[in-house]
């Protein structure tokens, strides 16, 4: 026999609140979201939009979700897969993801069609922080790292902060979100492997010029440890702050299992932190490649 539970019953806390305090309410939810769109944006990346709850749509730039990916034919991904928030619209109650098909889980995501359901869990982790004083920020991303930085552009605009985005990709046709950054008034500088402009030396030259022009009050980065090292060097040299969004394999995504740990350098001492819970966004100077 099976037991049917309706959602409201499953989610409702039982019993009266203890000591008259406010009833308990979840701030991280796992729920069935409805797929609105799941389309290729280029040869590698897919754009996924889902309808979700108010809690999920309250996700902040730099936070992520754990997606319970559908099983593609012949494969059985067991764990959830972490995906950065690509966009959130609290009014429409939607969240968006930008993903690259790499293995069983993302192959499963690729099978989703509008109207299908996807179990999403989030919002998770510590996102980016923007200082209202910052007039210009520089966001450097490569690959799927651009997805993570995209919602930052929107938040920066709301903050009155100008974004200069340095995007790195293998080929120009694999650059994603350029449009989106433009829409939020960002300047985009693209560098690619095929045009031989993406090397760390060239990126460093670009970043030095931005700093010299007074257009960099802080660095934001995701997706490349080579580029992260360049920014760490410049941040130290010019005394600039920075934040980096990091990746690590995750099982729980919520700080329980300690499989996602990385080493960080905190004032000269090496400490172990959970990327899912203490991050995924960390202080640029503390991150180790």
């Amino acid at each position, binding site marked *: *026999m*099976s*037991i049917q*539970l309706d959602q409201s*019953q*499953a*989610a409702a*806390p*039982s*019993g009266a609140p*203890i000591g008259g305090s406010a009833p*308990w309410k*979840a*701030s*991280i*939810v*796992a729920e069935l979201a409805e797929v609105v769109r799941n389309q290729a944006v280029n040869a590698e990346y897919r754009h996924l939009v889902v309808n979700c709850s108010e809690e999920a749509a309250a996700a902040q730039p730099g936070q992520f979700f754990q997606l*319970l990916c559908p099983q593609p034919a012949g494969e*059985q*991904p*067991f*764990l*959830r897969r972490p995906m950065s928030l690509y966009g959130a619209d609290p009014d429409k109650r939607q969240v968006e993801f930008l993903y690259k098909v790499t293995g069983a889980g993302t192959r499963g995501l690729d099978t989703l069609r509008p109207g299908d359901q996807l179990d999403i*869990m989030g919002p998770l982790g510590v996102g980016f922080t923007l200082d209202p004083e910052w007039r210009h920020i520089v966001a450097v991303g490569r690959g799927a790292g651009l997805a993570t930085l995209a919602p930052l552009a929107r938040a920066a605009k709301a903050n009155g902060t100008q974004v200069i985005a340095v995007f790195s990709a293998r080929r120009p046709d694999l650059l994603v979100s350029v449009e989106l950054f433009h829409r939020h008034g960002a300047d985009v500088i693209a560098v690619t492997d095929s045009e031989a402009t993406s090397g760390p030396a060239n990126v460093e030259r670009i970043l030095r010029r931005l700093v010299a022009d007074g257009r960099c009050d802080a660095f934001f980065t995701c997706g490349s440890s080579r580029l992260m090292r360049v920014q760490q060097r410049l941040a130290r040299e010019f005394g600039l702050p920075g934040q980096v969004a990091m990746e*690590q*394999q995750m*099982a*729980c*995504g*919520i*700080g*329980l*299992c*300690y*499989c996602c*740990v990385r080493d960080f350098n905190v004032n000269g001492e090496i400490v*172990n932190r959970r990327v899912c*819970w203490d991050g995924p966004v960390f202080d640029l100077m503390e991150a180790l490649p």
Partner: protein
Amino acid sequence: MSMTPNIDLSVAIGGLTLRNPVMPASGTFAEGLEKVMDFNRLGAFVTKTITRELRAGNPLPRVVERPGGLINAIGIPSKGVPYFIEKIMPHYAAYDTPLVVSISAPTAEGFASLAAELSIPGVAAIEANISCPNIEEDGKAFAMRAESTEKVTRLLRAATELPLWLKLTPNTGDVPEVARAAEAAGADAVVVANTILSMAIDLKSFKPCLGNIMGGLSGPAIKPIVLRQVFQCAKAVKIPVIGCGGISTAEDAIEYMLAGASAVQVGTATFLQPAAMTTIIDGLRSFCLHREIPRVTDLIRGVVIEEADEPDLAWLDPVS
């Protein structure tokens, strides 16, 4: 609206009364779940295993997935006892839910002194994770043999007056015999069981998938095996058996209780559905309602076995 009959979900586990039989499995639970569920609903809290010494844990990768399960070799990263008492315990003090502290040590003496040190207000019970290597026994886990289980339980019993749970390993030939040894030496309950020792190899690199080479399998894949061990242990001992292995739904928990478990621990399922434990509690209540079972304890050892159907497992272990 009609009156809902009251279902009694409470269970007694060796001197502790839990509001319901559902609690987390050690190592799959932490304060972060506060954002997912109301902690006042759980039967108990069970901490990640703590050790006296500081430990870094195992090299990465620490987990690998396989169909129906997860192999982990997290190791036991630990910040030690003072950190636990000062930084972790206060999180749980705000709740009206008993705190069970899981402990581990490389020697039986080490187990006993750690249990004594943690027998403090705020700790409701000690769960001794005796599935880890015993340095006096050449690295074999304490719970792999009845003798070492008997010794560590005896020392633990003398060291603490708190309810004492022994968490057994499934990686041994005769789990019921080990459970009997724990009971004889004064355990208040046994937890059956920890993860199943296993391995995975990456066909791209020809290397083991885990940094530690071997790890422990958990999740739905292990449920039938551990369920059988719970059934055997519940017949072998009078103290409560707490079932742990692959429980992700209320049906799984009910199956365990029918096999003889007095309570259940939920581990890997929380990684996939963070609110799994509260969903299971709700499911237990609805099951009892539908089947008109007034007390959840009525399920314990409820499996129906006709005399003639008694299983003969001799072929599994030709030596015994």
